[in-house]
């Protein structure tokens, strides 16, 4: 039924099967939209947020997807910025379309959820009109909205490569011209991403009255600024590779060469190793110098259910372990280990965002206040899960109708 829209030389599942799949996704998105309407109509009182937990599931999810969506800018930086000097990075071209699509999903999804999270969504633009130049969140608002626009611009030429759209001359030329200047957008995106990934980390590090989150730093930038950037580049491309592998498993096709996975694994392994070394150094300095200066011990910060196990999970199981597995060539030859390690890498970055958001707020600073636990309501879960479903929808439509993977035809000759 939609054969004419499917790229040439590749096979896709029958339309009724695809339609059913899309209907299921739309149902989940509908559930999220319903929850969103309730939130906008009745107010944030329907959530599990309160005066102690001003931030919760949504901010954790937003920070998490923005970090995982870093594959878009970093792949662009590697391919458009560095591949002329490091030829092996040209492999990135085979997966870069997917990276851009994932970035687009992550950032647009985050913006949609953020529209629910703030108490006055219509005033969201005040970040531009009444900008506080000292606030990290101002910088985040600026860069995330600008980078979202960059991602839309980067996604457009991929859409215009659809078989039918490409036949329209004006669209063909427009898409072609966008491709020619893609380096400008890629490097602009790198610049914007560097700053907002950093500022998202800076948001916590500057909280000088919250000992758990506060970090010293370099000039106006707390160390969390740099740690968030390095964790994002250590996990973003990993997430792209995982999504690609998932697509391959579902579609039973080979979409990229193994050399792409090998390159990403090696890159992420070393980036993760560097990040985790810096993170451990930062944690030790914070634990033994910064925290005692506030009259505290770090043991005071860990209280069930946000216990010490979170630190072990973040730094050990999802930090040191996958770094070793990915850095050692013999270990990453094994697909199970490779993708398992990439998965742990991604989990680690989400745990890190959770720790800074929810655990920070659970810890009382006043000695006579108490630890609290945050439990999100279904009205919070629904838009979050709907955001994931939205991502699945965009990837499904893109995979079916757009030539996302340049090597697909050669790698699947039976088609």
């Amino acid at each position, binding site marked *: 039924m939609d054969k004419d829209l499917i790229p040439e030389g590749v096979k896709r599942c029958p339309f009724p099967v695809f339609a059913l799949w899309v209907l299921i996704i739309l149902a989940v998105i509908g559930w999220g939209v319903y929850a969103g309407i309730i939130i906008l109509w009745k107010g944030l009182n329907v959530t599990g947020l309160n005066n102690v937990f001003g931030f919760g599931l949504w901010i954790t999810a937003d920070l998490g997807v923005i970090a995982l969506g870093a594959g878009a800018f970093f792949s662009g930086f590697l391919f458009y910025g560095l591949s002329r000097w490091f030829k092996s990075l040209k492999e990135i071209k085979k997966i870069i379309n997917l990276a851009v699509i994932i970035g687009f999903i992550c950032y647009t999804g985050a913006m949609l959820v953020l529209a629910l999270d703030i*108490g006055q969504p219509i005033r969201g633009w005040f970040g531009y009109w009444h900008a506080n130049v000292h606030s990290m969140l101002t910088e985040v608002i600026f860069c995330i909205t600008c980078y979202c626009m960059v991602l839309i611009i980067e996604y457009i030429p991929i859409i215009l490569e659809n078989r039918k759209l490409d036949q329209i001359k004006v669209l063909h030329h427009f898409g072609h011209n966008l491709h020619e200047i893609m380096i400008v957008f890629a490097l602009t995106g790198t610049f914007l991403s560097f700053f907002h990934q950093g500022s998202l980390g800076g948001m916590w590090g500057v909280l000088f009255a919250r000992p758990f989150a506060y970090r010293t730093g370099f000039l106006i930038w707390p160390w969390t600024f740099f740690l968030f950037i390095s964790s994002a580049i250590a996990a973003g491309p990993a997430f792209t590779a995982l999504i690609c592998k998932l697509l391959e498993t579902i579609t039973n096709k080979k979409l990229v060469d193994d050399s792409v996975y090998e390159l990403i694994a090696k890159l992420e392994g070393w980036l993760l190793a560097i990040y985790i070394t810096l993170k451990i150094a930062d944690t030790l300095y914070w634990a033994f110098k910064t925290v005692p200066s506030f009259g505290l011990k770090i043991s005071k910060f860990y209280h069930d259910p946000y216990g010490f196990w979170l630190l072990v999970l973040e730094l050990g199981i999802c930090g040191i372990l996958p770094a070793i597995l990915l850095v050692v060539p013999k270990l990453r030859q094994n697909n199970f280990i490779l993708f398992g390690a990439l998965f742990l890498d991604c989990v680690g970055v989400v745990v890190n965002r959770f720790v800074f958001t929810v655990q920070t707020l659970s810890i009382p600073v006043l000695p006579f206040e108490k630890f609290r636990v945050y439990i999100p309501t279904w009205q919070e879960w629904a838009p979050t899960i709907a955001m994931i479903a939205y991502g699945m929808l965009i990837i499904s439509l893109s995979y079916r109708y757009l030539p996302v993977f340049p090597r697909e035809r050669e790698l699947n000759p039976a088609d």
Partner: protein
Amino acid sequence: MSKKEHEKSSVRYGMVIDLDKCTGCMACAVACQEENNISFLKDDSIKTRSINWMRIYKLENGKKYPEHRHVILPRPCMHCDSPHHSPCTFVCPVNATQRDEETGIVNQVYPRCIGCRYCMAACPYYARNFNWWDPTWPKDMVEMLNPDVSTRMRGVVEKCTFCSHRLLKAKDKARVNGENPKGIEYTPACVEACPTGAIVFGNLHDPESEVAKLSKDKRAFRLLEKLKTEPKVYYLSSHEWVRKQGDNDLK
């Protein structure tokens, strides 16, 4: 963070609360609720959602009878005087909360607040409250709302303002009388309501003022001094165990 200090004036409004005098009657909290048109909830026992600009804490010494002791600690906004910025004013993305360097009062601009709640994350004193619902009052109370204080809408943050509307009125009166409005004396609602005179308010930078003298008392301490937030609310207590609960200490 930049170490550059904003220029500060000779006026710094602050408060001293004598915990040895406080009986826990909560007249200060009630007066504050009424003066500032604070909204009611259907169930105000949900303390993590209720709006209380003056929150009342009960501190205990942790001992059993007959050594058990407790004190009541009223906690308004500290109007932190930390260099450069207060913890909350530093982080607000839209300048909806700013410290007035003429008076030291940390204000809140309700029509500008986007409700991101970053300031609430930054505040270690839990002094900030979010409007989770549209404001409501018992029917008869609506007619008694204070016309000098704007009501707040759903989705914005609010907190103690040291009754800055009373300061504005006092300044206007001073100008009409040909007096200098700078550093004019005025009385917040909680100070006015306290039956034991436990709360004293004034210009901390005026060495002749009672509040300045009491802030230098040997019983004086501030909450969380080690954080260097420089709160402008001082507490007085002759009990060491109370002063120790004002901050985290390795000892």
